[in-house]
C-alpha cells in the first residue's frame, strides 16, 4: 500500500512539475516572439507564437500577433487565418479589424457573394454584442423568466405577468440567435486558402478537370471532406474539390 502511495505521489508530482514548467515556458516564448518580431525576425516570431498557441492557449491577442507575424513574413493566407480566428473571439478589437482589412486587401480573389444588408439590420444585436454576450444574455433572460414563474408558484399569485411575457419574448430572440451561432460554429466550416494559387477541380484526383483557380487568403466554405480532399464553395455556382493540405479550417 505504501509503495502504491509513493508511486502515485511521484506520478502526480511529475505531472504537476511538467504543467508548471509548461506554464512558465509560455511567457518566455511569447516575449521571445515579441522580441523577434520587433527586430524583424518574423519567422522566429511565428515559431514562438505558434509554440504558445500549440500549448493550448486560445487567445485573440495571441492569434492577432500570429496574424501580424505571418503577414510581415508575406504569408497572406496564414495571416488571414489567424486574424479570422482572433475575430471569432473578439469581433470588436479595432486593431484586429484594421489589420484584417489590410490583409484582405492583399488577396487576389474578389468576394462574389455579398451579405444581405437586411440581415445586419434585423439582427443588429448579434454584431453589436458578439457571440459570448448573446449567449450569456439568453441565459440571464431565461433565468429571469423561470425565476418569475417560480416566485408565482411560491406566492400563489400572479407576479409581473406583463414583464414576464416581455422577458420571454426577448429571451427567445436571444436563444434563437445563440442556437444559430452554435449551429454555424459546429456545422458550417470555413477555411482559408494557404498556397499562392490552388486549382479547384471537378473530382477527387490531381488530373480531374480544373474548374477555376483560387489564391491565398481567400475564404471558402467547406461542404464535405473525402479521401484527402474537401469540397469547397466559393460562391453560388463555384463549387469544386481542393486537396486538404491547401487549406486550413478557421
Amino acid at each position: 500500500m505504501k509503495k502504491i502511495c509513493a508511486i502515485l505521489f511521484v506520478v502526480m508530482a511529475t505531472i504537476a512539475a511538467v504543467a508548471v514548467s509548461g506554464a512558465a515556458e509560455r511567457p518566455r516564448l511569447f516575449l521571445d516572439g515579441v522580441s523577434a518580431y520587433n527586430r524583424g525576425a518574423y519567422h522566429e516570431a511565428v515559431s514562438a507564437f505558434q509554440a504558445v498557441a500549440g500549448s493550448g492557449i486560445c487567445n485573440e491577442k495571441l492569434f492577432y500577433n500570429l496574424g501580424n507575424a505571418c503577414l510581415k513574413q508575406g504569408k497572406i493566407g496564414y495571416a488571414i487565418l489567424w486574424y479570422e480566428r482572433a475575430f471569432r473571439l473578439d469581433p470588436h478589437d479595432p486593431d484586429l479589424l484594421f489589420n484584417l482589412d489590410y490583409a484582405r486587401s492583399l488577396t487576389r480573389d474578389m468576394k462574389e457573394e455579398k451579405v444581405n444588408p437586411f440581415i445586419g439590420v434585423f439582427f443588429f444585436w448579434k454584431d453589436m454584442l458578439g457571440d459570448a454576450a448573446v449567449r450569456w444574455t439568453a441565459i440571464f433572460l431565461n433565468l429571469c423568466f423561470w425565476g418569475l414563474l417560480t416566485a408565482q408558484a411560491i406566492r400563489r399569485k400572479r407576479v409581473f405577468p406583463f414583464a414576464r411575457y416581455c422577458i420571454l419574448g426577448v429571451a427567445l430572440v436571444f436563444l434563437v440567435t445563440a442556437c444559430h451561432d452554435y449551429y454555424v460554429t459546429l456545422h458550417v466550416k470555413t477555411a482559408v486558402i494557404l498556397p499562392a494559387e490552388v486549382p479547384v477541380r471537378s473530382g477527387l484526383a490531381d488530373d480531374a478537370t480544373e474548374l477555376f483557380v483560387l489564391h491565398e487568403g481567400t475564404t471558402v466554405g467547406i461542404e464535405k471532406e473525402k479521401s484527402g480532399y474537401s469540397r469547397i464553395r466559393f460562391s453560388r455556382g463555384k463549387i469544386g474539390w481542393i486537396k486538404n493540405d491547401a487549406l486550413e479550417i478557421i
Partner: protein
Amino acid sequence: MMKKLVFMLFCILMFPAVLSAFEITADVDRREIEPGESVMLSLTVRGGEPEMDLSVVRDFRVVPRGTSSSLQIINGEVSREKTFNYLLVPLKDGVLTIPALEVEFKGRTYSTGEISITVAEGAPREARNGLPPLSVAAALSERNPYEGEQVVYTFTLQSRAQYANARFQKPRFSGFTVKEIGQKEPYRTRVKGQEVTMTELRYLLIPLKSGTITIEPALLECDVATGKRSRRTSPFDSLFPESFLGRSTFQHRVFRTDPLTVHVKPLPRDTARPDFSGLVGSFTMKTMLERDTVNVGDSTTLTVTIEGRGNVMDAGEPTVEIPDAFKLYTDVPQEEIRLSEDGIKGSKTFRFALVATREGSYAIAPFRMSYFDPTTETCRVLASEPLSVTVGKAAEEDASAVFESPPGDEGTRGPRKSVEFTGRDILPLKEDLDALEHRRSLRHYQFAFLLILPCLLYGIVKILLAVRRKNADAGSRMVRRAHGALKMAERRVGRDEEFFSCLRRALLSIILSHAGLQGEVLTYDETEAILLGGGYPAETAKNAAELMKNIESARYGGRVVDETLKKKLLDDTQRMVRSLTR
C-alpha cells in the same frame, strides 16, 4: 378523385427515396469519332443520388454538362431517375476506354460497364480537305528555359467560320507558376489565300524546377456554323445575309491543341553563391538615403529598389549591414508589378528606417545581390553605392518648434480635405502578457445545461410545493370548512335543522383538522383523544366533547330549542373554533 390525387402527391413527396431499388447505367452517344470530336457520356441513376466520381477516366478530359431528373409512376410504383451528363474530350487517338465507374450507395458498391471509344487516327476531316473553319494551336516563347525564367504560352484560335458559346479550358500547367496576361485584340490575316481571324490568349509561365515538363492540350469548346438550314427560297433572300436570318446550323465541337514539351534547364552552379537572390531575368538596383545628416533620435530612410524584367516579386530582402550607432526597422516591401506581353516587369522596393542613437560619422557598407541573366547565361551582381551618414547632437529645441502654429490668417491655410492614408502598414503587436490567458468559450452542451437548469429548478420547486400542500391540505381544508360552517350557522339561526348541522360541522371540522383528516363522524372519545394528541389541555378536550354532545342532543333530541340556548351554543362553538384554530 381529388382525395386520391392529394394522397398520391403526399406519397410522392414523403417517400421518394424508398420506393425503388438503386440502379446505375452508363451510355455514350457515339462509339467512333473523328479527331477533334467529343463524346457525350450519360450516367443514369435510379433510386438514389450518389456522389459521382469520374477521376478514374484517364483517356479523356471530363467536362460536366449538367444533370436532369425525372419522376415515373408505373403501376403505382414511383421511381426517380437522375441523369448526369459529361462531355468527354479524347486526349489521344486510337481505342480509348471509359472504365467501369463505381459509386457507393447505402454501404453497397454499384458499377457501370466498361465502354470503348475508337478515335480515328490522323488529322481532322476538315483539315484533310483544306483550311478548316476553326483550328487551334499552342506555342511557347522558349522551349528550353532556365528554372525561374519566364516563358509566354500563347493559345491561338484561327477562325474563318462563325462560332458561338465558346468555352476555353486552359491546361493545368503543372510545374509552373502561371499568370494570365490576357487576350490580345483579335486581328485578321490571310492563310493559304483565305482571310481568317486570329484570336490569341497568353499566359506567363515560370518553371518551378528543372527537367522535362509536358504541357497538356488546351481545349476549346464551341458551336461552329457548319452549313445552311434547308428552307424554301424567296425573292427577299438576297436582301439579307445568312447570319441575319439565322439560317446557319451549328454543331457542337471540341478542339484541342497538341501537348507541348518543355526542357527546363537547371540554374548554373555559380548561382549557389550566398548572395544569389533567386531572381532570373534582367535587373538593376538603386539605393537612396533620405537624409545623410541627422541628429541623435532622428530617423532616415534607406530605400533599395530592384527593378527589371523577370521574377522581381521573388526578390528577397537585401542583407544591409548597419553600424551599431543605428537601430534598424524594416518596412513591408512594396511591389509594382506589370504584366506585359513580354512577361513580368516591375520593381520591388525595400525600406529600412535607421534611427540614430550616437553622434559621429558612419559609413554603410555596400551590399550585393546576384541574379541569373538567361540571355547571357551568366550570373550578374548588383552592388549598392557606398553611403555615409553624419549624426549630430539631439536638437532639444525642436520639440517646441514642432508645435508652433503657422503664421498668417486662418483663411490662407486652404480648404479642408478628408484625411487619406499616405502609407500602408499593419498596427503593431499586442505585447501584454494577458495574451497568454486562455479564453474559455461556453460549449454548446454547457449552454444547453444552463438553459435547462432554471426550468429544472422550477420543476423541483413545483413538486416540493405540491407535496407540501398535499400534506397540509387536509388540515387546512378542514379549518376553512370549520370557519365556513360557522359563518353559515350565524346566518341560519332561524332554521334549527340547518343551524345545528352547521354548528356540528364547524366543531367536527376544527377537531379533525388537528388530526389532518377529513370526515363527518367522530365519537366523543375520539374527539378528546385527537385534541389531547394535538397538545391541548384535558379540560379543553373535555369541553369540546361536551359541546359536541350538547349540539347533537339539541339537534337530534326532538325538543323545541329556545333562542337563548341556540345563542349560547353558537357562542360556545365560536369560542371553541377560535381557540382550536392554530
